[in-house]
């Protein structure tokens, strides 16, 4: 989308291994996402996408390997310092009881605040901009639990944006949304990247990944099996390898983005209905 002369790495993951005792989940993953770009991680359930994201957000201690955000090794930073560089929106976050939208978004400023600095002018501006950017300004005084799913997800995004981090990680930001709201959130993600941030999101929907990401990263069994521009990476062979599905790849008439259409599986001979 935006062509920068020298792409500085926004997020750089090198030879990362992570998992649980006796059960490696992420194996030898290396991944570089330049600043201002969107990367989408796709793959079947349990392939290590979420663990990779948690390791990159400094929530899951890797067994080996490094994560650099905006040039700094986040595992060498404290939790709070790391939260200045990387923000994560988990898949279904739980909000504090009865919190309002403005009340929620202000928590995004927590890593920047302290006992003697509870609400600075920068905090105010950051929250205001985050509300504006996500179109939630009018909802600021509403209670979060009284909003629709799409509105709520925009509020969560506002909170993450208010954190003012160069790297933003989103775990399935559209999983609970209908098509219209999913597109709305993904469009917002593009705007976030256009403003110079690096976005890495886990997505279930390969077609959405192909359309809204600059880089598609396909994972299987904890390894990256393919990564690159959607045009180059998303093809029938990849779908076969990652999901074990036969599929046709069409081109969207509008912009030529790859569209994945799974073929109906051949019925098993024993139970084949007579057609």
């Amino acid at each position, binding site marked *: 989308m935006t062509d920068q002369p020298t792409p500085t790495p926004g997020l750089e993951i090198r030879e990362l291994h992570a998992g649980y005792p006796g059960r490696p989940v992420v194996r030898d993953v290396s991944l570089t996402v330049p600043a201002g770009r969107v990367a989408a991680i796709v793959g079947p359930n349990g392939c290590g996408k979420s663990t990779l994201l*948690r390791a990159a*957000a*400094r*929530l899951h201690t890797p067994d080996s390997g490094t994560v650099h955000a905006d040039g700094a090794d986040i595992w060498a930073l*404290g*939790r*709070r310092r*790391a*939260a*200045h560089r*990387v*923000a*994560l929106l*988990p898949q*279904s*976050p*739980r*909000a*504090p*009881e*009865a*919190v*309002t939208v*403005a*009340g929620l978004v*202000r*928590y*995004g400023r*927590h*890593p920047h*605040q*302290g*006992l*003697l*600095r*509870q*609400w*600075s*002018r920068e*905090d*105010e*501006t950051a*929250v*205001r*901009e985050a*509300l*504006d*950017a996500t*179109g939630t300004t*009018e909802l*600021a*005084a509403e209670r979060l*639990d009284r909003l629709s*799913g799409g509105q*709520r*997800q925009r509020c*969560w995004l506002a909170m993450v944006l208010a*954190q003012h981090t160069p790297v933003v990680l989103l775990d399935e930001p559209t999983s*609970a949304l209908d098509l219209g709201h999913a597109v709305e959130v993904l469009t917002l993600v593009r*705007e976030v990247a256009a403003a110079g941030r690096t976005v890495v999101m886990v997505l279930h929907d390969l077609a959405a990944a192909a359309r809204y990401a600059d880089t598609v990263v396909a994972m299987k069994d904890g390894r990256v099996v393919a990564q690159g521009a959607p045009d180059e990476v998303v093809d029938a062979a990849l779908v076969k390898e990652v999901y074990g599905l036969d599929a046709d790849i069409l081109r969207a008439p509008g912009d030529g983005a790859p569209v994945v259409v799974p073929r109906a599986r051949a019925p098993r001979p024993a139970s084949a209905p007579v057609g």
Partner: protein
Amino acid sequence: MSAPHPTRTPRPGIELPDTTVLRTGTLSWLFPRRGALAAALLVPLLAVLVALSVTASSTGMSLSQTLGGLLGTGDAGTVMVVRDFRLPRVLVGLMVGAALGISGCLTQTLAGNRLATPDLIGVNEGATAAVVAAAAGSATGMVGDWWLGPVGAVAAAALVVLCAGGAGTAGYRVLVVGIGVSTTIGAVSDLLMSRENDNTAGGVFLWAVGSLSGRDWSAGTPLLIALAVLVPLALASGHRLQLLRFDDDMAAALGVELRRVRAAALALAVALAGVAVGVGGPIAFVGLAAPVLAQRMAGPTRVPVVCSALTGAALVVAADALGRVIAPVELPVGVVTSVLGGPFLLWVLFRADRPARKDRS
């Protein structure tokens, strides 16, 4: 009403709902208005309760006599009764209540459950066991020094934390282990008690229901020193505790060192409950009721540390005064809070069913 995607013009900051901002230079503080208002109403209420409690007695001292005693203008006997017996006892009750209130508030926030109380992590049973053991071991069979309670409480809580696998563990696990450990320690206390004579057992029993009878500055001074250290720490931790209301991943992603925050809050809760129990005995229900009432007054969005302290103080002062005037023989404060606490617990349980708590998106 602004458009969804406005042009990038610098705009003024956002008003936080129900919050007042105080700024000087690079320093800034937030004051939740509703909580501040509740605290502002609780302080005079507490003052009135203290005045009533100092005056209230079964011996019939008038208000002017009490005032005279307080100011030192009355006769020597009255001055001594008011200054050396009544006032210290009431102030000790106030401090015990505040400590129990804050401790309950921290415990409930840690566990994410309004029914969690410090005694569930073994504080009461530990303190009781220490006092019983000391009384059983001493020649006179008297209830010993005030510091036995806190030591026993901290030891029991440490045992609970150890069994639960560390202070950073999620609150729920600590509570479940705490119930088991408490029961075991309680059994040991009962065993010791059953071997004592009636005199010792009676003294320990009076302590174990929670009583402020005869508490003076010898208990009040160490309590004051402990609170002077612990209360500011608890107030400071409130800022981070707010974040425990998110799930763990979200809180950690927002820069909260969860294990450290949890361990600190748990240590504070145990220490506060420990000194309170050590001085006043295990006064029931204050640790449960104060934060719940404080939450209702201060509003649902905050961790009400200050209001819990004030509410706890008010509850204990009021219950102690009530115990002295209501019956011909003085009722221990713990008996009064127990009598009031049962119905209160039912009220909390019935209310807990009502509000729809579906914040998961």
